[in-house]
């Protein structure tokens, strides 16, 4: 799909109020023969307040893209404009500090930003109540289940006072029931805020359940191959027929993409 040499590549004009504007981003790991092109000329706009799910098979560079947006990795080519918005990042692992209590973990995110103590305390209580863990403030991470730890991680990410929340398969390691409940909770929190969410997953139903838009990435190299607007009214259910129906369509398209690599 690369534009022929000498012709300026056509790109969609950035949406008004775009929170994230990704332009022609490429990223290669390693060099020489062993190099792997993770992303190639990737373009994507995410509007403010939008919930976008990035979907793709293994090796499509989903996590790479989040790390580039968060500024953890360096971009080889192209640009990512986050308009000076504050960015929070959640991993598949809760990555809580095991030496701190639940409260202190949330508090630490604000301490790093030099928020005054009194303000921190009030906000910590508020955030723990938001993720329904207000009675677990003095517990240690290891005493909590994986799902509860991930909710603490969510509270901690929100404590960064981020406008853009990047989530890298945050519920990938959880059992199905816990995941369903956390979908409901994430949807509720997102609806009550003006948070922009970029949610990476390889679970098609999860993507359709959560996203305003599902963006399908190709593998090796990663590019945007397809986009689906999800018009299903919220609150949604992962097992509703409308979610299942759209998920089937997306799955077909994802399979086609995977099959390409088998030929």
């Amino acid at each position, binding site marked *: 799909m690369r534009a022929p040499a000498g012709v300026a590549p056509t790109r969609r004009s950035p949406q008004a109020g775009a929170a994230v504007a990704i332009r022609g981003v490429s990223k290669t790991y390693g060099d020489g023969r062993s190099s792997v092109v993770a992303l190639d000329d990737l373009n994507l706009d995410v509007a403010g307040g939008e919930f976008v799910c990035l979907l793709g098979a293994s090796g499509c560079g989903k996590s790479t893209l989040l790390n580039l947006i*968060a500024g*953890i990795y360096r971009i080889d080519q192209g640009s990512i404009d986050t308009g000076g918005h504050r960015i*929070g*990042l959640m*991993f598949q*692992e809760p*990555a*809580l*500090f*095991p*030496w*701190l209590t639940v409260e202190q973990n949330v508090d*630490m*995110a604000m*301490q*790093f*930003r030099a928020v005054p103590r009194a303000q921190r305390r009030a906000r910590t209580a508020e955030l723990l109540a938001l993720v*329904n*863990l207000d009675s*677990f403030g003095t517990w*240690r*991470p*290891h*005493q*909590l*289940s994986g*799902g*509860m730890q991930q909710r603490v991680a969510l509270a*901690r990410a929100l404590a*960064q006072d981020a406008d853009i929340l990047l989530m890298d398969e945050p519920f990938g390691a959880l059992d199905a*029931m*816990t995941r369903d*409940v956390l979908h*409901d*909770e994430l949807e*509720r929190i997102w609806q009550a805020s003006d948070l922009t969410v970029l949610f990476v997953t390889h679970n098609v139903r999860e993507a359709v359940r959560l996203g305003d838009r599902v963006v399908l990435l190709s593998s090796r190299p990663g590019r945007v191959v397809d986009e689906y607007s999800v018009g299903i009214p919220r*609150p949604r259910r992962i097992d509703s027929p409308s979610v299942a129906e759209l998920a089937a369509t997306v799955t077909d398209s994802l399979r086609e993409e995977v099959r390409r690599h088998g030929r």
Partner: protein
Amino acid sequence: MVASRTLDTDLRGLDALDTPRIESRNRGVVVWSAAWPKLLAITLALATWQVIVWSGWKPTYILPGPQEVLSRLGSEFTHSTFYRAVSVTLQRAVTGFALAAVLGSLLGLAVSQSRILRRGIGSLITGLQTMPSITWFPFAILVFKLSEAAILFVIVLGAGPAIANGLISGVDHIPPILLRAGRVLGARGLAWWRHVIFPAALPGYVAGLKQGWAFAWRSLMAGEILVIIASRPSIGVRLKFAYEMADAAGLMAMMLVVLFIGIAMDGLVFGAMERRILRNRGLLTGSR
């Protein structure tokens, strides 16, 4: 609103099922269950000792029985010179260990952060650690004469590398995900060291301090027997004098003192610190 309330109830239900129920145990039971294996071990050790004495393997003026040694130890407790000796020894131990901790920590920190330093002196530190401290004494006495400095020098060389190595391995074993989390949360500068690196490296560091203490105590005992300073009574000096007087009971009483202090520091100070850290992080299994 109804949906939201259902969600809250769902979450609380899952949480209740997921969280461990903490049983509170009777304090007396806890103390007793920790104490009886130790009491049994001590009883067995004393019994073995007594049996060897009864067997007549050595005459009792060379190998006295536990009763004689313990009553000798009891009478030591009534002499002020004994307390002066213990306090001199402990002072040296604390000063030497503190100095070793400062220097070892600085060295460990530098090596953990610099690839060049690690290549250059990483294996040297481990080499120093395996060197018996007694081999340093002839050199130390040559350089510092029979002085406090000679003893301190060997303690630092004995304990420093262990502490440095503990800190290095503590930093090396920090899970990369915690470092990423720290970066993402915006930890920079001093906060990065104080709130991410140091606490994350703490288990390895405390293990190094604990080992460093053992090395310091051993070096000190060797030093006090070799480096005798007039007007400075110490445990080592009393040990040596007891030997020279062929006072077997006094010798063994002093050895028990050395053993007790070693165990007490290891168990009550470093062991307690270590257990607390591991328990807080959920790294302590039920068998400890």
